[in-house]
């Protein structure tokens, strides 16, 4: 098969780094297989996919040009909410977020319709949490990527989505009731929109139906839950993570650096919480390790950085995690999967969304610990890091699991499944 004759696979990730980079991993293998992967992307992501050598096609979102300070405003507005419990976040963060996501789906409709007509893809890989009706009615085979935690697909044995609860938690029913109430306005609005374009309504907790063709879950076996109603293996494939390949990373020189290497990355959202990261750095200064800290676009906010800390605005994260002894993250599913893929323990400091679910699962599955974002003390942070760095048994189990995951990478499984779908 030559590149010229390969099928066109349009990858359509939501406007988040996790989904975007997850799709980059799949697209890299599709390209190796001779397919022609192209990206349908949010205008704010201009250049990200081109940097990896992929064609970008921007969704037209009239009137949606973000101001330079939009993101900072958003972070500033929501930072206090991230200190709340998952239950308290339902009204303050989850409900407005679903409203915004519904807006995106409605606003993208005309532009997406035009793009699909122009690109004529053989299949679309949708890595999002909401359906785009024009895709459902286009007749083009589409693949759903569940790049959130497994909780995105409900089951009696799976805790409620975004709850951070254990499956059997006594508060489960209350959380579910309040979740449905909080998201009802957005859900009803979305269902009205679906009806207007001839699509059936979705059940009350769902914004995205399973694909009738193919569904891909990132969930690695080591944290997978045993469902009361197992997913149909003909339509649902577990990827065991989906880690893109990045260029090599050489740890920077530390003035007095010795000891294990720890990476802190709270994702694009968490990087805005300068006060939290500064407080953590002050603890790192006293801990016998070297710390690499991802501070996103807020590098200028830091000064007097300790000698055993190195911070920067971006890192080739998989290549960094591969060399680390501990990964402190926000529970974003990509970060969690990368830690598992490379056999590195996680210290999860969840902010929101499925970060809560992954924090809970990390503890349950014995692959990490959770630290309360709002209430942690210096002693707790030091204790958690010491425990995770010193737990030889956990490390051994993680390394064995890493060998299994890397023997059959999720990116390859995903690309092969997509190509099988389009008959190549």
């Amino acid at each position, binding site marked *: 098969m030559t590149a010229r004759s390969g099928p066109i696979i349009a990858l359509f990730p*939501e*406007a*988040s*780094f*996790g*989904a975007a980079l997850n799709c980059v991993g799949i697209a890299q293998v599709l390209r190796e297989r001779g397919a022609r992967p192209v990206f349908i992307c*949010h205008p*704010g*992501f*201009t*250049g*990200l996919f081109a*940097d*990896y*050598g992929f064609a970008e096609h921007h969704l037209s979102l*009239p*009137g*949606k040009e*973000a101001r330079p300070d*939009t*993101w900072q405003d*958003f972070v500033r507005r*929501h930072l206090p909410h991230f200190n709340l419990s998952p239950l308290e976040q339902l009204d303050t*963060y989850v409900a*407005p*977020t679903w*409203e*915004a*996501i519904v*807006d995106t789906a409605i*606003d993208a409709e005309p532009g997406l319709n035009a793009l699909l007509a122009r690109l004529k893809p053989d299949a679309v890989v949708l890595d999002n949490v909401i359906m785009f009706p024009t895709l459902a009615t286009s007749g083009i085979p589409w693949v759903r990527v569940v790049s959130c935690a497994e909780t995105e697909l409900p089951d009696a044995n799976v805790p409620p989505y975004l709850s951070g609860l254990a499956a059997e938690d006594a508060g489960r029913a209350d959380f579910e009731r309040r979740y449905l109430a909080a998201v009802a306005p957005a859900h009803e609005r979305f269902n009205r929109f679906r009806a207007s374009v001839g699509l059936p309504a979705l059940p009350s907790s769902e914004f995205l139906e399973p694909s009738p063709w193919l569904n891909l879950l990132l969930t690695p076996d080591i944290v997978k839950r045993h469902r009361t109603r197992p997913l149909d293996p003909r339509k649902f494939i577990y990827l065991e993570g989906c880690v893109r*390949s*990045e*260029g*090599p990373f*050489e*740890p*920077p*020189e530390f*003035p007095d650096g010795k000891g294990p290497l720890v990476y802190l990355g709270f994702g*694009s*959202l968490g990087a805005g919480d300068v006060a939290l990261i500064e407080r953590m750095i002050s603890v790192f200064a006293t801990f016998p390790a070297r710390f690499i800290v991802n501070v*996103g*676009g807020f*590098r*200028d906010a*830091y*000064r*007097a*950085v300790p*000698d055993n800390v*190195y*911070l*920067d*605005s*971006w*890192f*080739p994260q998989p290549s960094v995690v591969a060399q680390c002894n501990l990964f402190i993250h926000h529970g974003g599913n990509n970060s969690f999967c990368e830690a598992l893929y490379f056999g590195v323990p996680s210290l999860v400091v969840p902010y*929101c*969304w499925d970060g809560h679910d992954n924090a809970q699962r990390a503890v349950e599955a014995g692959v990490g610990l959770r630290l309360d974002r709002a209430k942690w003390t210096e002693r707790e942070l030091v204790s958690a890091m010491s425990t995770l760095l010193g737990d030889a048994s956990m490390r051994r189990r993680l390394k064995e699991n890493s060998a299994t995951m890397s023997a059959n990478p999720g990116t390859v499984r995903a690309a092969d499944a997509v190509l099988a779908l389009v008959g190549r």
Partner: protein
Amino acid sequence: MQTVPKRPRSNHLDLAQRILDAVRQGGFRLGDRLPEQQVATLCNVSRTPVRAALHLLSEQGVVVWEKATGFTLAVDPAATLGAAAELPSADEDRLADSILRDRAARRLDGTVTAAGLSRRYRKEKRTVLKSLKILEAENWLEKAPGQSWLFRPAQEGPEAIAESYDYRLLLEPASLLEPGFRADETQSSALRLGMEAQLASPESAFDIREFQRLDLAFHGMVARGAANRFVGQSLADHLRLRRLPGMLHGVNVFRLKQSTREHLAILDQIEAGQFEAAADLMRLHLRLSRSQRPQAASRGAPVLPAAAERRGR
């Protein structure tokens, strides 16, 4: 462990690197004699700095000197690319490197004092002052009133980097277009070899430090080739700021390879004397490099004004 990319400590160090490039390009082999005049001609400089640079290489074991024969190659030049970057430096040079490294890592504030640096690095004040003088001579910082030294604006943060590209978009094509532009042919050939070797390496083994060295050398060559001395000097001064440690941490390897191919295409046009085409390709190269990583967005991306107004929120 990554070592910190070195500043241009002296012309001799740069020249030592150029000598290595030139002898490799010239097909010299282990044991070959390196007459000073021949090397000076190859590098387009006089014999005096060549002698000093050869002595630096001699200290590194790359060449040996004997009274009867002069300098001869002590190693296979093909295997010693970059060896000059490992040359030992004086105490004040090493301290200057550490100061730059720690400023880049935001361990040092924008204003420092010799006394403060002396305490931090446990060095005598006179050594610190020598290091500060070195950095001042290279435009990294300047003396402020009183006892303070002030770091000059560096290429940190998206806005400063964008402004730097805008500046280079003005001057680098202009350097190529000015009648009389002249590229160093020996260096051009050595750069081509290095870039082709980089393109041949898989992404997983891509040497980012080597890319940085070649990138700086390539754009430095364009600056030095300028017929207008003020354009050349301004560019050279500005390009030096790109040597700050960590400048390339956030750059994707795919883009670095793409950038290398763009360098080669520009070299093709320069060598063919097609300077207008070279300038056009340079503009394109700089514009593509200027392209910023996206502004962050995330699940629950900001509710933008139009949507909020439509729903009356």
